């Protein structure tokens, strides 16, 4: 049951013109991705700052200040070790609660929701805070125009609690998947045990995020459409019953193509990539919060969530949108 929602963006908006180089322009970026600006963290900011910001708002929205577990989806943790979730929990006044990171790149939030649903189903937690938070600006290669203009920073969070399947806000079935054969398509090569044990020093560019855009586009559309259809089948929903499609905001061309492929009208395909860029694991909760605030998501809406990311990973979920107290 979704009972709380919140999001947090760093203060600095960065329009395309600021990032345009000899190889790109505002028009080049917009026509390929639909992005006109994104937000970047300032010096001294961390992923945990954004996570705490979003988490605090989601808790307030839920009407209770604490939860029994905190799940943080991110691939830009404050440090490789320890996980960032315990720090976020403590900063939110919840020392002692279960807290862990989920690493599934842009699919992280859906994997996080599934983990939270599992904790609730086993009675391990009654209320769970699920956060997607990223500072991809910390790993972008300024010389790589295929990634440097796409990603942005931000965080979104939801509070889930135990409830009945027919209550508003109830989460329906999940579909989760992965394909390790695609593990070279979306990477940060250095900084992990593989490179450290390789006996070879990392090249400077190995510390940057790299993505094979063409192949990822191909896989993303195919995997998300198959996963979305699988979850609709499990939920017993027809595509025509989907009121809103909320897909990972990787690229406007991908999300529009996916909507067409699934047979969802463009008007039901929610999007905010033009203003926040691709915020990886924060993408879906950030869009949910903005849409809820702006009134494009309404109580009773049947919502289909779907995401695809590095790993490769993918995941989908359905839910009926609840009435949430205004922030």
């Amino acid at each position, binding site marked *: 049951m979704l009972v709380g929602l919140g999001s947090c963006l760093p203060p600095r908006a960065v329009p395309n013109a600021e990032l345009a180089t000899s190889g790109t322009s505002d028009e080049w970026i917009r026509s390929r991705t639909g992005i006109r600006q994104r937000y970047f963290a300032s010096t001294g900011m961390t992923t945990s700052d954004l996570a705490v910001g979003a988490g605090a708002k989601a808790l307030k929205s839920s009407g209770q200040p604490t939860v029994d577990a905190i799940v943080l989806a991110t691939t830009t943790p404050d440090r490789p070790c320890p996980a960032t979730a315990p720090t976020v929990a403590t900063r939110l006044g919840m020392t002692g609660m279960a807290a862990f990171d989920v690493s599934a790149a842009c699919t992280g939030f859906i994997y996080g929701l599934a983990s939270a649903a599992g904790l609730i189903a086993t009675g391990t937690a009654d209320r769970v805070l699920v956060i997607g938070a990223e500072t991809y600006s910390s790993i972008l290669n300024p010389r790589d125009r295929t990634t440097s203009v796409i990603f942005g920073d931000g965080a979104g969070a939801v509070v889930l609690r135990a409830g009945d399947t027919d209550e508003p806000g109830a989460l329906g079935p999940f579909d989760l998947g992965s394909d390790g054969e695609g593990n070279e398509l979306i990477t940060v090569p250095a900084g992990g045990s593989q490179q450290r044990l390789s006996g070879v020093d990392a090249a400077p560019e190995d510390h940057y995020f790299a993505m094979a*855009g063409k192949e990822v586009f191909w896989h993303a*559309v*195919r995997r998300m459409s198959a996963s979305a259809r699988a979850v609709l089948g499990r939920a017993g929903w027809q595509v025509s019953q989907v009121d809103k499609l909320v897909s990972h905001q990787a690229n406007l061309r991908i999300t529009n193509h996916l909507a*067409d492929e699934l047979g969802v009208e463009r008007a039901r395909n929610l999007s905010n990539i033009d203003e926040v860029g691709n915020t990886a694991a924060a993408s879906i909760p950030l869009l949910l919060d903005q849409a809820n605030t702006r009134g494009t998501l309404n109580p009773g809406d049947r919502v289909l969530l779907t995401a695809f990311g590095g790993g490769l990973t993918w995941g989908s979920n359905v839910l009926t949108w609840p009435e949430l107290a205004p922030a």
Partner: protein
Amino acid sequence: MNSTYDRLVNILVSRFEVDRAELAPDVTFEDLDMDSLFLVELLLVIQSELGVEISEDTVSPRDTIGRAAELIDDTVAAATAS
């Protein structure tokens, strides 16, 4: 020209907002400022319309629209024959 060519033209006009007057069999995708990322999307749409698996490498930006139609027809023929 064959119907695959016509399909490509219609998709380019409706989905990629290319001016129909700019399109001819000997025009390359590079001429239209379409890079490999746009081509991936184009192939995904054609794949959906024709109901046949088409590899993302089938067409490159330097190919002409006419050549792209031929390459796609070859793929369809191979899929139907096997």
